[in-house]
Every structure is written in C-alpha cells, then in structure tokens.
C-alpha cells in the first residue's frame, strides 16, 4: 500500500511558490462579464501594469459605453465614465490639464471604431500622450450582439442575421492600421488574450504603451482581439477557436507601428 505524504496548506502557499496572485488594483467584486469573456483578462493586465509601474496614484482611466462601462467598479484607481465613443476626447481633456498624470481609455470596437471614430482619429492625430486599450470582439456585446464596424464578412449578428453583406454593410474596419499612419501615433499593435502566451505578449505591449506615455512619445494604441462568446452564440472554448481561425485571419496579430 502506498503512503501519501501530507502537505499542509501553509507549505503549499509558502513564499516563493506563489506564481500568481490576485491583481492588487482589481477590486474584490463580481465582474459583470460573461464567463469566458476576454474583457476580464484585459482589465487585469492593465491594472497589473499600473501596479507594477507604481503609478496608481497618478493614473486616471476612462471607461467607455459597452460591456466595460462598469470598468470603474473593477479598477481601484480614479476613473471617469465617458459617453459612447467620446473617451479619447475625455482623455484629451484630462491629459491637457494634468500632463503629469497617466491617462488611458478602455474602449470596445463599436465605441472606438463606429460612434467614436472622429474622436479616436483626432486624438491620435494630435498625438495625445495617452494609452488607448481597444478591445475588438467584432460585435456590440453590451446591447445584445448587433453588427459592429469590425464584424467579419458573412458573420452573423442580430442586425446582420444572414451574415454581414459587404456590398451594403461595408467591410470590417481596420482602424488600428489607419491610425498607425498618423505621425502622432507612437505605437500601434494588435494583440490577443485567449492563450497564456498571448496574455504575456499583451502585457508586454501594455507596459511599452505606458512607458511611451512616461517618455511623452505620443499616442499608443493596443488593439486586443477578443471573444464575445455570448454575442457570437458559442461556448467560450468554441469562441476562442473561432477567434483563432476567423478573427485573426482578418485582424493579424503583431506590431503595426513601433
């Protein structure tokens, strides 16, 4: 008969063995996101970077309208909620009166690339020294899965129930490529968070973006291609597979401007 050694809980969580802890700047509350959604991971990464850089006392975030409208409930820093699409203008107002603070926006694809296109392009064109976190899930998650500017050709949504017809509904907008052409943009990159490896890469990109802000380099935009399992009507696992095979084919990962 085999005997098993008894390990006490104290031994398990002994210092040095800890490989992951709850993010300090994430509040102890229930996230409003569907299980399997990428928003939560993206939140965590932003807060980890702010914490690790030790800038939480000097960081002001702007939450958008979208599933992440309540980001201010989850992040333990000073935050403002902006009207739909207006986060880059709100961030401009903050940064101009507080140039020494760190300012970031956190926006969905409908928010950033449809209703807020003008605010996005012009903030980037002025080279506002801010960080834009852009979560592209190819759909309007919050309002129940309508077509977004980033919805793929042929992709079904509640307002393209037979699939996106590009002849009448236009093509998915690659706005990160668009703003990367602007001299005001210091850094434009496309990342994802549905595998551990990609999470690590995304975090590196966020660190670089905040470092750019510290060095007053101009606008940094990080697009995170993410899933919306609810809106896509898939299980989380299916949605990640679909993301890999379809979203990333249209929105390839990597730096667009460094």
């Amino acid at each position: 008969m085999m005997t098993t050694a008894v390990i006490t809980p104290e031994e398990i969580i002994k210092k040095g063995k800890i490989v992951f802890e709850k993010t300090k700047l994430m509040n102890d509350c229930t996230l409003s996101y569907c299980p399997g959604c990428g928003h939560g991971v993206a939140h965590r990464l932003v807060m980890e970077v702010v914490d690790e850089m030790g800038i939480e006392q000097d960081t002001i975030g702007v939450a958008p309208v979208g599933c992440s409208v309540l980001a201010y409930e989850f992040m333990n820093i000073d935050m403002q909620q902006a009207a739909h699409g207006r986060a880059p203008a709100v961030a401009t107002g903050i940064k101009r009166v507080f140039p020494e603070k760190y300012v970031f926006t956190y926006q969905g694809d409908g928010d950033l690339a449809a209703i807020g296109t003008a605010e996005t392009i012009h903030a980037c064109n002025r080279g506002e020294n801010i960080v834009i976190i852009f979560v592209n899930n190819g759909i309007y998650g919050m309002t129940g899965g309508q077509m977004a500017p980033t919805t793929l050709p042929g992709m079904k949504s509640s307002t393209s129930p037979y699939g996106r017809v590009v002849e009448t509904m236009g093509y998915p907008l690659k706005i990160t490529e668009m703003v990367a052409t602007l001299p005001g943009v210091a850094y434009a990159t496309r990342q994802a968070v549905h595998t551990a490896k990609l999470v690590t890469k995304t975090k590196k990109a966020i660190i670089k973006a905040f470092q750019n802000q510290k060095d007053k380099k101009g606008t940094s935009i990080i697009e995170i291609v993410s899933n919306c399992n609810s809106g896509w009507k898939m299980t989380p696992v299916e949605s990640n597979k679909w993301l890999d095979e379809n979203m990333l084919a249209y929105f390839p990962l990597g730096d667009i401007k460094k």
Partner: protein
Amino acid sequence: MEEVKLMKGNEAMAEAAIRSGVDAYFGYPITPQSEVIEYLMHEEPFKRTGMVVLQAESELAAINMVYGAAACGKKAMTSSSSPGISLKLEGISYMAGAELPCLIANVMRGGPGLGTIQPGQSDYFQAVKGGGHGDYNLIVLAPSTVQEMADFVNLGFDLAFKYRNPVMILSDGAIGQMMEKVTLPKQKERLSNEEIIKRYGSWATTGKPESRERNIITSLNLKSELQEIHNQHLQNKFKTAEKNEVRYEQIQCEDADYILVAYGTSARISQKVVQLGREKGLKLGLLRPITLWPFPKKIISELADHTKGFLSVEMSAGQMIEDVLLAVEGKAPVAHFGRMGGMIPSPSEVLDAVEKEINKILK
C-alpha cells in the same frame, strides 16, 4: 490690475476667462462666436497663465474635453453658437448627471437648422428647459452688455462650482459682435493642483492616493432605485438654486402700468422702448431676467398684482413667454412680440406692438 478697454463681447468673454483663472478652453469655430477661440489663440494664455486652449475636431469632442478636465476639478469652458450647442447637448446632459461644474457660452444665431448667422434668441427652450435628455437644469445667465459678457465668466464658474452643475451664458450674435467699453477684472491666479485637491479632492479624479477611496465620475446607475435617489439629489440642488440664485434688473417698474420682459439684445431694445413710451406718456417698465434659469417668477408675479399687462419681447417665435405666463398666473394679459430669422426688431416696431396691446386691454 483692472483695465478699461473697448472690446467685442466675444473678446471680452475670452479675456475675462484668462483673467478669471480658467484652466482650459476647448472650442470649435462657428459664427458669430469664432472670436472667442481666435482671441485666445492670439493671446496665448498658455504663456500668460498656463491656461490650455485647444481647437477640437467638433463641438462633441470639445464638450467631452471639458468633461474630462472638469472631472479633474479644473475650471473648463467652451463656447459655440446654436448648431454647435445642439451637438454639445449630449455632453451637457452627461455633465449634469455626473455633477460636473463647467461654463458653456451660446452666442445664439437664428435657427432652426443651419438657419442664419445673424443674432437670434430661439434657443431659449433648449437652454432653459433642459435641451439634452433627462431631468436636469442649467443655470442660465443672460448678458445684455459687453461688460456682462466679461463679468458672467467669473460669476458662472462660482455658480458652477457651488452647485457642481454646468452653467450656460446665453448670449446672442449682437452682444457677441458689438464693441463696448468694458472694465476687465484683475488677473486671478489659477488654482494649484494642491489647492484643487484640497477643495475638490472629495470628488475630483486627481489620482487616487492611499489615503482615500477612489473617485469615480459617472452618470450611470444601473439600479433604478439608486438612480432615483440620484435624481432626487439633483432636484434638491435645483430647488436650492431656484431659491438662492434668481437675478434680474428692474427698469422703471415701480410706477409702470405696462411691463416689457426681455433679456439680452431684446432687453437693450426694450429699454429704449420704455424711454420712447414714457416720452409719449405711457408708463412703461422693463423687467430684465439676468438668470433665465432660475427664472425670476416671484418678482413677475408681484408685479402682476399692479400691472395691466406684460409683453415678452424675444427674437424668437415666443419661448420665454411661456415662463412669463406661468409667473403671471393669469393675473394680467401677457403678449409676445418677436422677430425671427436673425432680424432684430427696431424700438419703434416694439413700441407699436406695446401700444396695440395696451389698446386691446383698454377696450
């Protein structure tokens, strides 16, 4: 140092903004108020006081920049004219909901639509009755001189911060464009970040120190019960403002048989009408609301007890007349005289209208 100058209304407002220690102006050009941003860009207050001046890509962006700056406890303002104010209303409603102080100037032109670039007063409803969505009020100041264009900047910010609510200067193209002598205020220093934290640190997003909970600026409440409590809080604030902030000017109302009610450019014309009428033996008076919201209801109601009638003179189809009617409570007849489309009435045509109304009453 105070300084006396000959200036356009728009320029006087811009200079007063610098001197009132305003932290940021965000705007977008539109006639008849483009001089505000032109003057500021020419004066370069960023060198004088550190005040930020930025030309935004639209009025939508401008008001949201104001939102961002105001939420940091800074004195932020914008200005525009009618079509541009329509675009700002989204942001204005959000600011009222999020309880953010700011100053918005509307140098009105005639509408609707692109309308005319000539002076108008047809945005009264928009300014006074909400305009944007939701239950809210703006404190609305109506200057009738270049001096008031300057003075209302400081007053506007005082009220905005007192009530944590947007304040509007409702002017018109004539006041904005005309030149008059103006005494400019002494230069006030802009508040330091430390001073801002001391005064507004309980709510402003100035960066969260360990010593306090995070500050959140939002107009969102997903729970109806909480939203209603917030609504009630806002309404209480508006009630206090209604009690304390009514401002008006009475010109020869003491012995008047017939009273004109007018603001802005219409008030200037009406003042002349009072003089012309009195020369003809008509005992006319002028009640000039300085705050259009809160509206000077009480004084109008009191005047109605011993006045034969009222004429609301406006460069619109008749908007303020609704508030005059409510204030008069049926105690005397109330009529309206107005021109539209950017037309400014002449004193003699207003006097004709007054005489016609008086004759109707006498009949």
